[in-house]
């Protein structure tokens, strides 16, 4: 398997709580991997470790951009992970809500642009060209998720489903190779979820590998090629949706002891 991301023995401890203990799995390049598990299983903690918000207490996180050698990126700052090509969305939508839809996405071009204070004040030709390119890239990503026409509205005025799509557009605008989607379908109606499935396949079509955390099992089983199941910070299963569905440990984790034999 050509792995874009390899999580190798990662543990994360918060005081006395082991949020993750010795978790290992690999994410296949160009596929959709699902990270599932009951509430409090450590899924978002895992995302935060990969995205650089947390430094793992132990273990390695290897990121292979497909060109050079895999890099151990455990403990890198979030902005450096973004520059490397790892983007993410948040479980509780975190938009820049006082700004416009366009500005939310323009900010995401930060790591791919370079104008500084003096360039901005003097409006040098290169700064102007860069600003134009930022708008073009932002609009391209907004059109990709279907929000192009709302570009100049305040981000806070969007519907809940559109706000989730805007977060995805913002993540895509950083030109990632790997995107981490934290419960992208949460709070969406069936029609919006259907559009989300198409969007995720389109993201894959752009050559971006997708990892998602999701509680909608129908959705997960349908679109993921591989699943990783966490429970209480421990990986309890890993494999294709069929394998995971048949795994007694998974059934027990979701439904309680005895359910696997019922």
């Amino acid at each position, binding site marked *: 398997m050509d792995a874009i991301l390899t999580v190798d023995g990662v543990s994360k401890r918060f005081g006395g709580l082991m949020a993750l203990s010795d978790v290992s799995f690999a994410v296949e390049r160009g596929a959709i991997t699902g990270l599932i598990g009951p509430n409090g299983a450590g899924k978002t903690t895992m995302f935060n470790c990969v995205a650089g918000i947390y430094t793992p207490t132990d273990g390695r996180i290897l990121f292979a951009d497909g060109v050079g050698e895999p890099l151990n990126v455990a403990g890198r700052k979030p*902005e450096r992970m973004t520059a490397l090509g790892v983007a993410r969305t948040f479980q509780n939508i975190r938009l*820049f809500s006082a700004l416009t839809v366009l500005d939310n996405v323009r900010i995401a071009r930060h790591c791919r642009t370079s104008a500084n204070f003096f360039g901005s*004040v003097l409006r040098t030709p290169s700064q102007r060209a860069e600003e134009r390119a930022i708008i073009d890239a932002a609009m391209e990503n907004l059109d990709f998720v279907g929000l192009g026409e709302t570009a100049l509205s305040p981000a806070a005025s969007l519907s809940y489903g559109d706000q989730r799509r805007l977060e995805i557009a913002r993540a895509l605008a950083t030109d990632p190779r790997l995107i981490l989607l934290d419960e992208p379908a949460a709070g969406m109606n069936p029609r919006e979820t259907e559009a989300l499935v198409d969007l995720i396949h389109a993201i894959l079509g752009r050559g971006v590998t997708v990892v998602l955390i999701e509680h909608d099992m129908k959705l997960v089983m349908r679109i993921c090629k591989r699943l990783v199941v966490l429970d209480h910070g421990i990986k309890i299963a890993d494999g294709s949706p069929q394998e995971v569905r048949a795994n007694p440990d998974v059934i027990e984790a979701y439904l309680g002891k005895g359910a696997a034999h019922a």
Partner: protein
Amino acid sequence: MRGAAHTLKYLLLAAALAYPLLPFRDVYVLHVLVLIMVYMVLAMGLNILPGFCGLLDLGFVGFYGIGAYTAGLLTIHYNMSFWLIVPLAVLNGALFGVLLGAPTLRLVGDYFAIVTFGFSELVVLFLTNEIWLTRGPLGIPGIAPISLDVTWLATLLGVDERWRYAFRGEVPYYYLAMVMVALVFLVMTRVEDSRLGRAWLAIREDPMAAASCGVNLFAYKVIAFAVSTGIGALAGAFLARWTLFISPDMFKFWESFLVLCMVVLGGLGNIRGALVGSAILIALGEVLRVALPKLGLPAETRFLAYGLIMVVIMRFRPHGLFTQVAESTMQSGLIKDLRARIAARRTA
């Protein structure tokens, strides 16, 4: 409606430009107007921190003081030209901003506010006690006024004269202050509508999401601090060469609070708001200074009025007079083009 607002703006600007030349001009009014413009520069500078980055800075006046003393000392010891002093004072302010910011900007929220408050008290203590340098509480009197020496231009043109203009009275300072406000306004609007300004606003809105967009939070906060403190020092340098006397009690904590009130009154993160906030609070301060003694109250009770205004603002307009952030962004040519493109797409 929009057109009328524009016309009013230009009328006000024309009136402001013409006022010092009119026969009924009043030196006191001119003095207050210059003071307003000094505070406009301060408010625009401070606005970067709480307005753009969401950092509560209670020690802004410290950098105003550093700028003023840099200018005052360079003038009395080296008789340096104001035009050379301005960049030096700005750099000195920015330098102290970085020195204070680099170790403390990792603190968040109230902790950062406390450190900045402590710093401004430290500046006042330093200015009061390091008598060998600052003459302490006696202050620095007799600072030379600004002069504009363009004899080099005369020499260049082959004219054997001394082309030197010394600033006397309020009028030249008035116009210089206008230029200063206009320049800082231009810098601030351009920065607001740029990669740098967007990074700052992202930090204010949601630091974690900003970092995930690739913004190095610490570096951009330090840049914000350096720019903000540099502008504070600019206002200080002007003050020193305008009032011609500086002393430590001109830079007490109260001044920081006043500038913060201007920014909050105008609307955090709105540059026009900073201008309007300064004009209102300084003008009000002057009116109350005259009116209160007539009512038999000591002039110091005007501080109570400031407090009352802040309470009323917080109650009825919690986001200030102008609530729009990133205002200049929406007026840029690129965005106007985009608006037209989107409209064309909708009708197509």
